[in-house]
């Protein structure tokens, strides 16, 4: 009897403690939900290369990886090269992934902070611009370019347009006057079109990025014996990640660290599938460059009267 009474009084005593514990648990759970809901949201603007669809497919895994590493819900925003500055200025994305000339434009005009440059191909985080002709065409020197039909890559492409334009200026040739005719292909895969334009004889010479020549050779689309490389620019930085000046410095540093630590075996789950982050993005890794590494592009852009130094 005594035992029964004692246990009853013990239960009575313990009841408030049990209720308090339950309340505490509920509070913890709720605050956890709040925290999840409070995860910051940010956007990364990725420069379109071939198409919006391809850009999304390439970079969604990288965006997911960064979200997981940084505890931020990042969104992948595909952006056309020509619209990049305007959309960045409007605040449509806080982080940028663009070619190195667009990085300079945003750095000069909007104080964009340098994060890391992507590594891809033989020159690592750099590549060069080459002027090519078809082997056996007889066009072998820059002087031979006079009066010829030339195909350039897109206008804001550092190694598909700017570097070659500058190579010609440096050699005393004015592309606007000395070429017979020049064009820029429309639509996707512009760099490949430029190479094929010469390969199939539609144009005499073309402005090809060394990286594209390398990739096409590796894939067996062309061979080293198909072309003559008339001239090649110095190597300059490749695609680059940047951060808006408004972003907290600690987050910027974490973002850079996540990029530099990214290894080829790293995977994320996309639509129920395990996807390799770097392989999906066609990237070998990331390098931490210095802003001064971009100076050769600045010199080229000034000489070629290109943004951000363009004068009318």
């Amino acid at each position, binding site marked *: 009897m005594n035992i029964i009474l004692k246990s009853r009084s013990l239960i009575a005593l313990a009841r408030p403690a049990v209720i308090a514990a339950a309340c505490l648990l509920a509070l913890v759970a709720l605050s956890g939900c709040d925290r999840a809901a409070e995860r910051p949201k940010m956007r990364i603007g990725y420069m379109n290369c071939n198409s919006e669809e391809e850009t999304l497919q390439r970079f969604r895994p990288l965006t997911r990886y960064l979200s997981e590493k940084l505890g931020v819900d990042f969104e992948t925003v595909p952006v056309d090269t020509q619209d990049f500055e305007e959309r960045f200025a409007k605040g449509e994305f806080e982080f940028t992934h663009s070619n190195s000339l667009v990085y300079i434009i945003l750095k000069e005009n909007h104080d964009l902070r340098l994060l890391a440059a992507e590594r891809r191909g033989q020159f690592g985080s750099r590549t060069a611009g080459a002027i090519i002709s078809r082997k056996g065409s007889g066009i072998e020197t820059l002087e031979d370019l006079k009066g010829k039909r030339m195909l350039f890559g897109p206008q804001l492409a550092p190694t598909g347009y700017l570097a070659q334009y500058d190579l010609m200026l440096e050699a005393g040739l004015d592309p606007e006057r000395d070429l017979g005719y020049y064009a820029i292909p429309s639509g996707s895969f512009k760099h490949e079109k430029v190479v094929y334009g010469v390969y199939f004889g539609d144009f005499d010479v073309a402005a090809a990025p060394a990286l594209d020549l390398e990739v096409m050779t590796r894939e067996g689309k062309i061979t080293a014996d198909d072309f003559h490389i008339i001239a090649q620019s110095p190597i300059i930085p490749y695609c680059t990640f940047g951060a808006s000046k408004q972003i907290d410095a600690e987050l910027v540093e974490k973002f850079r660290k996540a990029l530099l630590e990214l290894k080829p075996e790293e995977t994320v789950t996309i639509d129920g599938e395990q996807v390799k982050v770097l392989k999906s993005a066609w990237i070998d890794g990331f*390098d931490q460059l*210095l802003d001064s590494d971009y100076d050769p592009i600045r010199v080229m852009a000034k000489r070629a009267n290109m943004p951000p130094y363009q004068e009318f």
Partner: protein
Amino acid sequence: MARDGFDRLIWLGLAGTLAALAVLLLGAPRGSDARQASSLDKGIERELAYQARSAFLQKIYGPVEELRAQGEAQRALLKLEELGRAYPGEAHGYLLKGAILQEFGALEESIASYVQGVKLNGDYVDEKSPLSMQTEIRQLVDRGLDEIGRRARANPDNRTLETALRNLYYLQSRLAGGCE
């Protein structure tokens, strides 16, 4: 003992093996003569292997060297890309690529390529090997330690320069005879 044809065959084989062993043991040269003959054989074997390897490398990478000599460094790199598909694990390709990348001023990538090549085949840092590229690698290490070292000291938090320095120290250690 020999129950059927198969058993007889086994016994015959065993007898043959024992006879062959006896001939080898009795007919083999003894003591220092044997050691001398054996080391001579090894020397010839090694020489033959090196000659065959040199001929093979010349045949495969000759066109790359030719393009380089003509000043067509970028096409030489593209040629290496093509060869890399057929011989992905060949150290010589990495050494050649390292040399060409250095000409382009891609110092960090050049060092990384030399490291890959040396890891695949240590002959390139062995002074006695006919394949030795000790002098070129030593010059690269000296240049790298000067240029990259200076940049790394000015930017102590830069991980890319830190990696390049690590690669340089690896080459330096291999040049000094250190193993991996």
